[in-house]
């Protein structure tokens, strides 16, 4: 997967590159709109991450160019200014997703994966965990073919997010950011994640102990596959 990162904040661009490269993406980075515009015209990318606040270029213009010369590419807008009108405008112009800064790299990765699933029309996205099978598209969990309906929406979100980042320890702040993303609320650090995990375990234990859902002491949780 080829990714073009257009981000004028060098430190952030470099972190994005480190992360995406570590996850087997091929990255190119440019720090200004002019270079990006040239690259878009010449190369083909699977993903273009565009920072809207470029000093020399209007990010939305860059998006327009990308849509013309790199029609196959999935464009994600990254910006500190995520006002409703910008968001609507960006999406209307063909952006595939919108990530307001500051975002978690894991969030970025799962959004990129979601876009890929949409693009390639993956219908049956089922993951096997012990005797459990989790359908990420239909959002269902079944045990030996028996549907488990007790799992709530939030609990499923948690499992799905852990599966997306399988074999990786996710910290409580990371999980919490994903789960409570849209709600601006007053608690910055609470143990609601632990409560959710406890509930999940209790509900799944009725069928079989979910050994694959691990607690990493002092850090967070992990699903090993």
């Amino acid at each position, binding site marked *: 997967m080829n990714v073009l990162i257009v981000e004028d904040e060098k430190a952030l661009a470099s972190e994005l590159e480190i992360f995406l490269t570590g996850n087997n993406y091929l990255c190119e980075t440019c720090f200004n709109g002019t270079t990006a515009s040239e690259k878009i015209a010449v190369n083909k990318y699977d993903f273009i991450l565009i920072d809207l606040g470029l000093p020399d270029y209007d990010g939305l213009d860059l998006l327009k160019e990308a849509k013309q010369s790199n029609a196959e590419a999935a464009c994600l807008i990254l910006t*500190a200014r995520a006002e409703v009108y910008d968001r609507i405008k960006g999406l209307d112009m063909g952006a595939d997703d919108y990530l307001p800064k500051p975002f978690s790299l894991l969030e970025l990765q799962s959004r990129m994966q979601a876009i890929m699933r949409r693009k390639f029309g993956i219908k049956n996205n089922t993951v096997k965990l012990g005797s459990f099978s989790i359908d990420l598209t239909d959002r269902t969990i079944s045990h030996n073919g028996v549907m488990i309906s007790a799992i709530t929406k939030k609990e499923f979100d948690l499992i799905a997010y852990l599966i997306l980042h399988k074999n990786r320890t996710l*910290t409580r*702040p990371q999980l919490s950011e994903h789960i409570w993303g*849209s*709600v601006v609320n*007053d*608690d*910055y650090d*609470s143990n609601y994640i632990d409560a959710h995990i406890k509930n999940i375990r209790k509900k799944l234990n009725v069928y079989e102990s979910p050994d694959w859902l691990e607690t990493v002491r002092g*850090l967070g949780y992990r699903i090993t596959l």
Partner: protein
Amino acid sequence: MKLQTKLTLFNTVSKLVIVLLFVALLPSLIKTINQNYTDTRLRKQKDKVLQVVHNKGIKFFIEDNEAYASYTPLKEEYVSIEFAPPNELLDTIRNERRAVEGDTIRYRILSHTFKIDKVNYLLEVAKSVNTIGETSTPLQNIAFEVLLSMVILTILADLFYSNYVLRPLSLIIKTKLRGQKFPNFAAYKKVQTSTTDFEYLDMSIHEMIETIERTFQKEREFISNASHELMTPISILQSKIENLFEQEDVSDELKISLLEMQRILNRLKTITKTLLLISQIENEQFLKEDTIGADELLQDVYDEISIRLQQKDITCEIQLPANVRLKSVNKFLLFNLFFNLVNNAIKYNKEGGTITISGQPVKGGFMLRVADTGIGISPEQLPHIFNRFKKFRQSMAQDSFGLGLPIVKSIADFHHVHINITSEENVGSTFELTFPDDLVGV
């Protein structure tokens, strides 16, 4: 008291005082006028009599050495000529009593002596004092009536004029100072007036409003810009920490430190996000185009928050009419509002407590009530609970930074929803949100 009332009252009182004073002085004035007039008439009559004496001789009046006297039938006037001692010289006008045919009457008498053929005569021309004064009372009454009606007329005219001339003032107060959403004022519209003072007042108020508006705008811009500026460095730090986590040679101890950093960063992020949200709401950057059932909205909040309820073993009852819909609202913001409200109700509740969410139509709209059985808010804290950054209940050591209620307030204001809070310590708090009629549909 209104300025117009004051002016009218002053006018009325001052005019009445002048009129009463005038009416009271009227008798003595009339008396003086009458007396002067009578005196002049008496002198003219004297001259006429003397003329007759001169023309026709004294014998025309005095025959057989008898004094002459002539009365009008009602004895109101008389003329008399009689002999006077040779050395007496008189030319006076005085009030004196005279007995005329058995009646004693007060007369204004002109006494004049004259000599004819070395005989001294005394001429008296008189007019009864009663007849002089008798016009005084009717005149006084007429004057009083005429003046009183004039006073009433002028008061009415004053009232009408002051009403006309002061109308721009009430217009300025009504359109510029009251009923305006602070600090978002409507565009400047000049108040029509020909009074320069009001023009000046209107301009000054407008300038003042502009200054206030600019200051508020600056503050909002500052918060918005500062929050935006913070987003990039937070983003960089967050990415750095997440990348460090991925490195295989990082020890678990270091990871725990990183987690601690992540927590602090998350806190910073939430504060910044909250400030940005509030400034976006205050800058009216949200659309109000959604329609959602009240029960549906609260059910969403319940689903989101149920884990927190479970943890504190709190029962949450939702009793809402099924057919109430909230229209022209922002769903995301209202969700945030109720989420924070219910979240607070959980945070400050007792273990095993209850939260009751109910709704009912009220005059002018629909009221949603969130009541808890929590620790309550003390009366001295109650006026400050919507203050940004004013953190209370610190002794509770809650994971909170007191921005939940400012969010609630900003969102409610944005939707013109009125909030009323009642609270009793150790009993619980009730938040009543009244949605105006135009936001409620069935």
